[in-house]
């Protein structure tokens, strides 16, 4: 079958099961866009290419399938960069297809030419420059295979305009991936399994550290089985949230910089850490020298380069997490760890209740209120896409997720502006689910142009802006570590309600606790997107907090004067 390169792109995408792509057309990818009209793929026109990459990323995180972003050459492609780096840091499988100037112009500084494979080399799992139409099929197949296998990640395919236009024979079967150097499926040595089993069965104070790998490998059920059989409490990384039900008695909650005190104390006092699909990021460990000093570490990880990178593993099990846990499970003995659990519960105290529903309304609106109410009113069933900063940490602390792939956020790169475009991808991946964006007034303004995409696509994503008039997390650091010198953190925002209305969305401003319920219920009831502008307390901070580089147990606790003390979330009063 003779096809143009552009047609081959779509033939391949359709065969990979792609139904939705996110993109922006331009001169160098015109042939791809022209051919698109003949294929059963829905194209979502974003308002900035960064939004396309985030949307593809959100789609991938919500579905486990590969997300696809399209952009033209030069500025189109460089606008993808932040989104690609975000996906890279969080191991999210996306394929970006960019147009490139015709091959005879490459290297001659042609109009809208940029060295896109050069630019994205360190932030992609792999990338390609294709200048011949007969190479497109194999390259696209390889790109999908690489993106979703092993430790997933972004792959970029840069296709010159002449390769899109030229015709050649298309043979799908002959274009199978040929990747002799790529080994995504590694397995651990049997001797390592035995060591791991011995450590687990003899541990007195074990803690499971569940990361993003739980979702990626689909290990939720076997993780729960293992935790229950051996009675091991489970702490989660930011991206691990949802990998273990928040309502489960063995759930500890989030660990690390803004993890609750009892979680970090449990880790510091543990005699065994079972690190499942996580990478000991600095936000999780604090000072490495004093991290879990008495604990042996079992590290289960698909990427061998993560083993011994930050924390020395006593036992390393390289491989797919679910496979490893399935292998381990039969040998794991039922453990009576009542003493250890009692100790943790004692540390928790009544903080575990976290009941802020019955707080006296003192006229102030706190972000914790808002998110807690949102959690209750949505029955904990919504997919929450959070942005970056205080809003992200509050969302992680107060919205309790029982399902995997229901908490979506930019963890590793910490990309402000991620939430809104990512939520568009999430909604396309899971159209029947309730999707909420939680964003700050700063991050929301970085990508708010995607409100137009929501309107054009006529899809519903509710947006909760946690509006405190500051770049809140930076302000918090300035308060704690820079003597409240608020350099460039006070933030003037437009009237978000008028703005949302300009994009034909409904908008509600909320300034009192008493208005939260009605606003959320209205947002849920309306057919279209609703933007809620929550005017929260301006100088509220996220607690507890482990200062960057400090010991994990050295937390800044909630000040006793804070209204949050009454939430019972303050563990300091034990």
């Amino acid at each position, binding site marked *: 079958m003779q096809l143009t390169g552009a047609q081959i792109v779509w033939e391949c995408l359709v065969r990979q099961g792609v139904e939705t792509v996110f993109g922006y057309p331009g001169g160098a990818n015109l042939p791809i866009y022209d051919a698109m009209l003949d294929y059963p793929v829905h194209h979502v026109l974003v308002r900035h290419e960064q939004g396309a990459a985030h949307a593809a990323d959100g789609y991938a995180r919500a579905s486990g399938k590969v997300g696809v972003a399209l952009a033209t050459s030069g500025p189109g492609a460089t606008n993808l960069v932040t989104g690609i780096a975000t996906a890279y840091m969080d191991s999210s499988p996306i394929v970006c297809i960019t147009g490139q100037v015709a091959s005879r112009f490459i290297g001659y500084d042609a109009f809208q030419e940029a060295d896109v494979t050069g630019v994205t*080399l*360190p932030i992609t799992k792999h990338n390609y420059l294709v200048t011949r139409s007969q190479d497109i099929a194999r390259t696209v197949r390889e790109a999908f295979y690489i993106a*979703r296998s092993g430790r997933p990640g972004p792959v970029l395919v840069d296709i010159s305009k002449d390769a899109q236009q030229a015709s050649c024979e298309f043979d799908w079967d002959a274009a199978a991936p040929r990747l002799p150097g790529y080994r995504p499926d590694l397995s651990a040595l049997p001797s390592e399994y035995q060591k791991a089993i011995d450590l687990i069965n003899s541990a007195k104070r074990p803690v499971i550290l569940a990361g993003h790998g739980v979702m990626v490998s689909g290990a939720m059920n076997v993780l729960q089985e293992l935790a229950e059989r051996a009675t091991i409490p489970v702490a989660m990384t930011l991206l691990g949230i949802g990998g273990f039900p928040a309502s489960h008695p063995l759930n500890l909650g989030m660990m690390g910089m803004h993890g609750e005190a009892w979680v970090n104390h449990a880790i510091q006092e543990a005699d065994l850490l079972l690190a499942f699909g996580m990478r000991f990021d600095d936000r999780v460990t604090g000072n490495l020298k004093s991290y879990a000093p008495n604990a042996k570490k079992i590290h289960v990880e698909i990427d061998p380069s993560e083993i011994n990178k930050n924390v020395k593993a006593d036992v390393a099990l390289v491989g797919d997490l679910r496979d490893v846990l399935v292998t381990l499970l039969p040998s794991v003995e039922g453990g009576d760890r009542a003493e250890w659990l009692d100790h943790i519960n004692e540390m928790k105290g009544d903080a575990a209740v976290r009941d802020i529903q019955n707080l006296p309304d003192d006229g102030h609106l706190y972000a914790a209120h808002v998110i807690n109410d949102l959690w209750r009113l949505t029955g904990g069933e919504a997919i929450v896409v959070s942005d970056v900063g205080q809003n992200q940490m509050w969302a992680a602390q107060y919205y309790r997720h029982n399902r995997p792939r229901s908490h979506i956020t930019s963890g590793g790169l910490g990309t402000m502006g991620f939430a809104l475009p990512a939520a568009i991808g999430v909604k396309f991946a899971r159209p029947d689910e309730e999707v909420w964006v939680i964003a700050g007034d700063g991050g929301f303004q970085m990508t708010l142009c995607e409100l137009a995409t929501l309107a054009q696509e006529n899809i519903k994503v509710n947006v909760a802006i946690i509006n405190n008039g500051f770049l809140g997390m930076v302000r918090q650091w300035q308060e704690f570590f820079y003597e409240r010198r608020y350099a460039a953190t006070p933030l003037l925002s437009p009237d978000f309600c008028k703005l949302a209305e300009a994009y034909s969305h409904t908008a509600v401003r909320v300034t009192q606790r008493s208005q939260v319920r009605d606003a959320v219920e209205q947002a849920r009831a309306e057919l279209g997107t609703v933007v809620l502008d929550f005017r929260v307390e301006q100088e509220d901070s996220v607690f507890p907090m482990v200062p960057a580089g400090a010991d994990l147990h050295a937390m800044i606790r909630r000040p006793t004067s804070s209204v949050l003390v009454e939430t019972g979330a303050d563990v300091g009063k034990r």
Partner: protein
Amino acid sequence: MQYMLVAYVEDKPGVLNRVSSLFRRRAFNIESLTVGHTDQPGVSRMTIVVDADEMEIRRIEANLYKLVNVLRVENVSSTPAVTRDLALIKVAADINTRAQVMQLVDVFRARIVDVANESLMVEITGTEDKIEGLIEVLRPLGIIEMVRTGIVAMTRGSTTVTVNPPLVPARVPEMTTA
């Protein structure tokens, strides 16, 4: 400490860039890096010498393996191996000093590959130490120009490494929202 890695890579455009970019990005120090063809079509071989500690060299190895175009990495630092470096050295030598240079070249089993009125070009192959030794004694006579290839290495004995592991099909991550 100095470590030596041998890497087999696919002979494709940009692979050298990927490897060197990795070293730059992860802040590893390259002392020497050489690339050349192998007896297998489509496969190039790199010899990389780095200054690192044991943890670092493991990280380097693991990160090299992550590059899709890297077929095989072998740490030959503690394996008996032959290592060679080649240098071309242009030395100032007129009619009065020429004999002296030629004598030194003889001692080091190097070769004169070009003779001019005011200079000689010396070619020397050997270990780094041997080449350093020759440079040291030629320096007082006036080195005009010098070029070195960097180190290549091969393990001793008849064994070798396979560079073509079979392609393993990946398990497609399932939709896991239940």
